[in-house]
């Protein structure tokens, strides 16, 4: 009985943490900051999966959700800002002429 209460409490706490983390991801405005927050959110999800006794899913989540996906997002943001900088450079050059 005591054991059940404790595990329910753990599930409740980790679910709340996931909810807070998801809100933090949605409400962070700058995309590059969002990628870092997303990584932290991935870690919270991992904790939830461990608490729910799904270690296989937790292993996948910790590798994909906290490392690979944020890295892809950061690289995409970098590329987009590079392209923007290049466009700005080209239009500035034409204005000089």
């Amino acid at each position, binding site marked *: 009985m005591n054991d059940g209460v404790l595990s329910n409490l753990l599930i409740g706490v980790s679910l709340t943490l996931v909810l807070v983390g998801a809100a933090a991801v949605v409400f962070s405005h700058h995309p590059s900051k969002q990628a870092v927050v997303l990584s932290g959110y991935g870690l919270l999800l991992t904790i939830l999966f461990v608490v729910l006794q799904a270690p*296989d899913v937790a292993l996948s989540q910790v590798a994909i959700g906290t490392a*690979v996906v944020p*890295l*892809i997002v950061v*690289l*995409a943001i970098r*590329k987009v800002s590079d392209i923007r900088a290049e466009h700005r450079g080209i239009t500035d050059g034409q204005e000089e002429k």
Partner: protein
Amino acid sequence: MTRRIRLIVLGLGIVAFAVSMALAFTGMPQFGGDLHAYRDAAVAATYAHDTANAVSSINFDQRGFDTFGEETILFCAVIGVAALLRPVYRERRREVSEAGHVLESTNLLVYFLFPLTVVLAVNVLAHGAVTPGGGFQGGVILSTGIHLLYVGGRYSLLRKLRPLAWFHQGEALGVVLFGALGITGAALGSALFANVIPQGQLGDFISSGTVPLFNIAVGMTVCSSVIVLLASFLDQALAIRAERVSDPGRTPRSGYEEGSAS
């Protein structure tokens, strides 16, 4: 269709959806309850094939064809990304300089964590049939471990340690191996993806028949896929640049038409 009729149709749809969802949720077994029809069937089948990790048994033994489909989806998605992100017309690769300062503590951490991650990945992959983990997890851990070198500021070292052509082939080879194992099951056993190898003792390192072999095949595909995927993104972000427009008379539009005509 006037706006009013549209709203009525929308309202009907929402009401029907809400009613069916309410019926479905009230009819569901309680959270954390003891009634699990699927678990009872799956765990019995897992023990019948002496596989200690029930998840691996379900993925590779009990519904191997499903997993084959999932692996193919991953394979196709990565091919799509690699095709979209390759250097195209008016883009060129440039040398990536090793500029940028990396903290010494970061360097130390990379030296320490890189071998550790590789060993962990091989461990997770090899024990996939016995403990939590398996081909997918091991493959992902291995590929992220290799990319630690990029965190340590060594893009050139990463490129040397990661012969991309090998991983292009490794990705395909994993899918082929998976399919071949499935067909072997059909040829020697009763059905496609049947577990035809003797399963041995529950909990042994070499047990549960074909499951470790499937783990290796999936590990190859997943590790190669993530490496090819990240390589495409890294290449785009660091090395590939649009060519400078030297002739101001040539607008990008005319260049685009040339590209599509050829």
